[in-house]
């Protein structure tokens, strides 16, 4: 059977990339979709309008902005095998659909969410319809084939003022579908992909090997045993890897920790650096003692941060330790820019996004949900850095920072007693 990928022309901002180039689990979205379709023995063709599709027959139609797991395609094909009409993929509403739902262009029914994966059968394809019109045509004539993702839920406590205390439900299932239209979707889908890819990997392995790696009662130790380590990795004995996929030639320094993450080939992780729920592109490297949670890094970046959460950094970005993409909204959920307007994501924890080849210097603090265009360079304000120091200093005489210099406090602020040294 053939599957037709229809071009939608969706661009992911601030990168300006076509949606097929969006970075998902260490591959582009186009590669991810292709490998999932090929796994289900489907032949892939591309189309730009309905004229490129056969008039009739039995084939799949999906937009290039749709993310699907291989199990989703397989089960959809199974559920629609006996139907003689146009079928549309729907997933029962659960954490699996809700996790990446904000800003998606999906159709929500009573208890399910419909995605733009169609099985075309028993009808005649009209000609010259671009994707938006083709979508309307297919949606109006299709019947939903609803699948149940049945996710196992992991509760993520949310760091925000309370009460009430809230948690976010992280779904653990290999049956996922999502529309990719915004950089926030990269954040949310990449949170789920390390676990999904690991499950898919072990599904393909012989049962005995799988059982051996999955032995024991402690879930953390089991996850550590199920990690995949690529060829020629250099892992320090004090480093820790759990539930992760490491590409070839990855270097892990002392006390580094990688959990629930996908690390691309050739990544160098320096001492004491921690990754959790991250996807790190090929050839990235980190500086010492950095901490990343739920981030997606395109290839080739240099990463340093005291704490960076739920953010996306483009290709060859250099981010220094003092840069902060603040990710905890205090008074209202985080809103982001989409199609020229501000859209509420409904999420209380969301970082930011830096475009390709950005250089982000010290003391840049972004409020949640902000996106920086490609090739932006941010430097420190001139008056914030100390550029001149006294050649000598008297003992226990207080000095202060003043206009780029360190000077005696009595000269700059006569009569002021600093609170640290009041008698």
């Amino acid at each position, binding site marked *: 059977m053939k599957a037709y990928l229809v071009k939608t022309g969706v661009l992911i901002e601030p990168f300006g990339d076509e949606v097929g180039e969006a970075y998902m689990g260490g591959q582009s979205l186009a590669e991810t979709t292709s490998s999932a379709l090929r796994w289900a023995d489907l032949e892939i063709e591309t189309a730009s309008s309905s004229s490129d599709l056969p008039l009739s027959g039995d084939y799949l139609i999906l937009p290039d902005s749709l993310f699907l797991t291989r199990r989703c395609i397989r089960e959809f094909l199974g559920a629609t095998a006996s139907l003689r009409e146009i079928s549309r993929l729907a997933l029962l509403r659960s954490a699996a659909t809700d996790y990446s739902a904000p800003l998606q262009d999906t159709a929500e029914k009573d208890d399910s969410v419909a995605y733009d994966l169609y099985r075309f059968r028993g009808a005649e394809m009209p000609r010259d319809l671009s994707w938006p019109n083709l979508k309307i045509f297919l949606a109006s004539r299709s019947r939903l084939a609803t699948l149940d993702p049945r996710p196992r839920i992991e509760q993520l406590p949310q760091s925000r003022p309370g009460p009430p205390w809230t948690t976010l439900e992280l779904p653990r299932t290999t049956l996922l579908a999502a529309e990719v239209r915004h950089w926030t979707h990269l954040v949310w889908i990449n949170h789920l992909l390390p676990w999904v890819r690991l499950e898919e990997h072990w599904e393909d392995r012989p049962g005995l090997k799988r059982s051996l790696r999955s032995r024991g009662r402690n879930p953390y130790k089991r996850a550590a045993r199920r990690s995949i380590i690529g060829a020629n990795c250099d892992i320090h004995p004090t480093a820790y890897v759990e539930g992760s996929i490491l590409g070839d030639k990855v270097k892990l320094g002392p006390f580094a920790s990688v959990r629930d993450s996908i690390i691309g080939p050739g990544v160098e992780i320096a001492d004491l650096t*921690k990754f959790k729920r991250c996807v790190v592109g090929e050839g990235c490297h980190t500086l010492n003692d950095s901490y990343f949670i739920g981030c997606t890094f395109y290839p080739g970046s240099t990463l340093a941060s005291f704490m960076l959460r739920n953010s996306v950094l483009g290709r060859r970005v250099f981010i220094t330790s003092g840069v902060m993409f603040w990710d905890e909204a205090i008074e209202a959920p985080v809103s982001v820019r989409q199609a020229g307007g501000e859209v509420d994501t409904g999420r209380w924890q969301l970082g930011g996004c830096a475009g390709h080849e950005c250089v982000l210097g010290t003391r840049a603090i972004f409020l949640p949900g902000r996106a*920086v*265009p490609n090739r932006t360079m941010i430097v420190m304000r001139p008056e914030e850095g100390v550029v001149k120091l006294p050649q000598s200093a008297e003992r226990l005489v207080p000095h202060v920072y003043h206009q780029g210099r360190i000077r005696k406090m009595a000269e700059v602020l006569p009569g002021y007693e600093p609170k640290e040294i009041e008698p």
Partner: protein
Amino acid sequence: MKMYIYHSGTALMPFGDDVLEAQLMLGTLAQAQERACVRHGVELVRIDKPSEALDRPCLLAADYVYFSEKALGDFLKTAAEKKASAAALALKRCVSVEHTLPLQDVVLNDWEDDRGQVVYDLWLVPEGPLSDDPGLVRAALAERCPALTVPMREVVHAVRLPVIDEQERYFKYPFTSTICCHISHWAHLLWLSQLALGIAWNDCFRNHKLRAAGKAIWAVLRRMSFNKWKILSGMNLRGPGCDVHPTAYLEFSRLGRNVKIGAGACVRNSLVGDDVVIADHAVVINSVIGNGCYLTENFFMVSSLCYPGSTLGNLKMQMAVIGRDVYLHGWCSLLDAKFVGDIKVMHHGKRVGTGRSFMASCVGHRAVLGAKVLIHPGREIPNDLLMVSRPEDVIAEVPESIPPRTPMVRDAGTLVTLESLNNRPKT
């Protein structure tokens, strides 16, 4: 025998709570008093005025008095041995007494010599009426009830403090369960929380001797070592439903029910309440964390007290008191050191020295501190304070088009080119 605890109307600032609601170990002061009384078969009766204490002989105390189980037990035992019909609880001068002494309204006897003792407002009252007025009762009982010094033992561990002015300083950390204190300030809660580990473990060893001995033997056998750190890492008490990551390190700590401790976290010498989440790589040392708190990733907490329900995202915090349902963001720092002189705090409307160079501040209930700010030591942050960033500190608006590879700087909440900033007229 009955113990009458009369209401003094003491309120703890900045919380505004009645002193009986003060957080002590993992409960309140009221619960601590009740537990001590139940342990020694004393019936606790709370009264509004001292004159309502009718039984004789009886124990009488003010509601701001904290007494540990051991202190009360030893007081009753010593009074019985000496056949004293009237007595006031006193402790001899020692490290643990001095640790909580600043800001307390207590009677000091012979303080400068070796026989120095502190007399607390807990009396064994003989025959005779009591006045309505707590002040008059204190004065009357000071004459009628002689001080009875309770025997005590303590182990002192010296912790080195930062060197300032070439003077080596040590924080003497006492480990004992014979503690008494008049609580009138948040600093007392902090100091008592620093002693809480000794109180909790000594009470545990005393009340569950067999279990404690079994645990110590098992800690040695399991690790096949007499290394003290290895044994201490086996001396933890976990409540049911705890989820501790295998790479987390626990040492000599007590965890409540359903506590979750993430990867690489370290909890040493601490008391952790029910339903607490300590996220990955967080460090908790010598602290007390109330029920339902959430300590976010990489958080570092030393010698602090946290009321229930708070979310703490501060990167480093030492010697602070955090109120109920507080939200503390990573960029709000509580400074905890003073280079010259001691840290002063507000007490009864005046700034009073604590005699300490290392102590942070107290954050009131439900405060939300989400701004980049440094708070000097010894400050009281009021309840319900919502503190947000100044617009010039953050980038709130990212311009839609930014010239590529051109140095940009933060300015008034957005990004401008460095060149335009340099070309501005200087004021």
